[in-house]
């Protein structure tokens, strides 16, 4: 389980996170929702120790993040984190060299799934294909948790569909996923848990299934209630 406990973060004098707390379970898809600038990406970066926090604590399976945690959790940011002059093959080689949890079989499967050409140079890829390579490099790691920042942002409809299909496949099964997205419609039916953020705080944390079954509300209905109050 990923536990985010009372985290606070300032950029200059502006307080972005004012004590955010939530949990994300393994085997569940947790979605962070909030308007631009609410600190969704900052939370993901903080989980990966890519930005320091002013207060609070983050635990992964009960322990603070350390170098070994990167074999257990991965972050797929909204931009590609590989050198542009590399080919997809070279990027995979790099991952294989550095991560013991790299799963080449799954990487090959993802190559086929996304119809990517391993010899393509990263700098020559379209935005959609770049996002797919990003997903490939993250999902081919045998990790327990995957953090995804806006995987659908600025991507054409067909690529969005392909990426959304990943969430229903075995590629995600049994893993804990935290995702931030604006395009909630693409994956609404797949979400297990939703964390609504506003003004640096969690305004509501709820089970998507419970909302559907008990109250007959979709995630978007709950969002409307919270944000348009």
């Amino acid at each position, binding site marked *: 389980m990923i536990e985010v406990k009372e985290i606070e973060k300032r950029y200059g004098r502006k307080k972005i996170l004012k004590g955010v707390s939530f949990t994300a379970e393994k085997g569940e898809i947790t979605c962070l929702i909030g308007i631009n600038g609410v600190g969704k990406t900052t939370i993901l970066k903080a989980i990966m120790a890519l930005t*320091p926090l002013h207060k609070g604590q983050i635990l992964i399976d009960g322990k603070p993040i350390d*170098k070994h*945690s*990167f074999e257990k959790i991965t*972050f797929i940011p909204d*931009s590609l*984190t590989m050198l*542009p002059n590399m080919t997809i093959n070279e990027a995979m080689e790099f991952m294989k060299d550095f*991560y*013991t949890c790299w799963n080449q079989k799954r990487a090959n499967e993802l190559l086929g799934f996304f119809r990517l050409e391993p010899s393509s140079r990263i700098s020559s890829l379209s935005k959609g294909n770049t996002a797919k390579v990003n997903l490939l490099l993250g999902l081919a790691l045998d990790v327990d948790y995957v953090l995804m920042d806006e995987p659908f942002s600025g991507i054409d409809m067909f690529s969005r569909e392909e990426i959304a299909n990943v969430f229903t496949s075995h590629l995600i099964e049994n893993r804990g996923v935290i995702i931030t997205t604006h395009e909630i419609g693409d994956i609404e039916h797949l979400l297990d848990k939703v964390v609504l953020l506003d003004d640096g705080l969690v305004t509501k944390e709820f089970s998507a299934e419970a909302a559907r079954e008990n109250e007959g509300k979709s995630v978007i209905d709950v969002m409307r209630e919270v944000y348009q109050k």
Partner: protein
Amino acid sequence: MKKYLQLVNFEFNRIVKLFTVLLGITFVAQMIGVVVQSRSYLNLANEKMYKEMMPQAEFLESFGQMSFLQIAKSSWFFGPIALCVAGVAFYIFFIWYRDWIGKNTFIYRLLMLPTSRLNIFFAKITTILLMTFGFVAVQLIMIPIEIMVLKAMVPNEFRLDMGVMEVVTIIPELTLIFPSSFMQFIFHYGLGLLAVSVLFTGILFERSFKWKGILAGLLYGALAVVVLLLPLLLHEFVLNNFFYPIELLVLEIIMGLLVLSASIWVSGFLLKKKVTV
């Protein structure tokens, strides 16, 4: 250790093109320098001896023999060395900033590798050292080749032959690159390593705290210089020449190690706890 070596290999491969280009420029420019300087000397000799009928002995007395010193003092020789030095100096900064700038922010990947983040620091500093020693080593190989070309172009009687050791010990600028004793080597390259480690720490301060980080980096640099010079300052101004030279040297080595350790520790702390992407 394995991850560190993999990172060094990876970092070095990233600069291998620039490194090869700079080496190529150095080789070509210095070779042109040998040819140009030798030909200009031979042209002068021809003009004086065949047009103005100056006897060979008088020519040699007036203009001297051609030696490698004339080549080594020309900008054909020093220009590319300066270019390589500038290249290394530029790359000390670029080796970090290239991972942050641009569309593909590679620093995410580096910081998320399942290895100590200090290995990134060590790999980058090792790359700078490899680059520097690479240039020095290739320059050492180039000099005898250039001497051979000089010998092939200028006849024996017009030439004052010099060995590689003579060349690198006579020219003061070259003694900086090729120290003549082990102590000098430790002094020159140790100081260089210290400077790079302090600069890296300064860069990481900037990457962690932005504008405030620049100030912190500058303060850290100033503090490092003061700590390094402390024995000399005390010796000179407070203790009235108290130390023997060997004691002073030992104290300086201790201070150098102290600054190096502090730079490594602070950089490790910044990379682990403060750096932001």
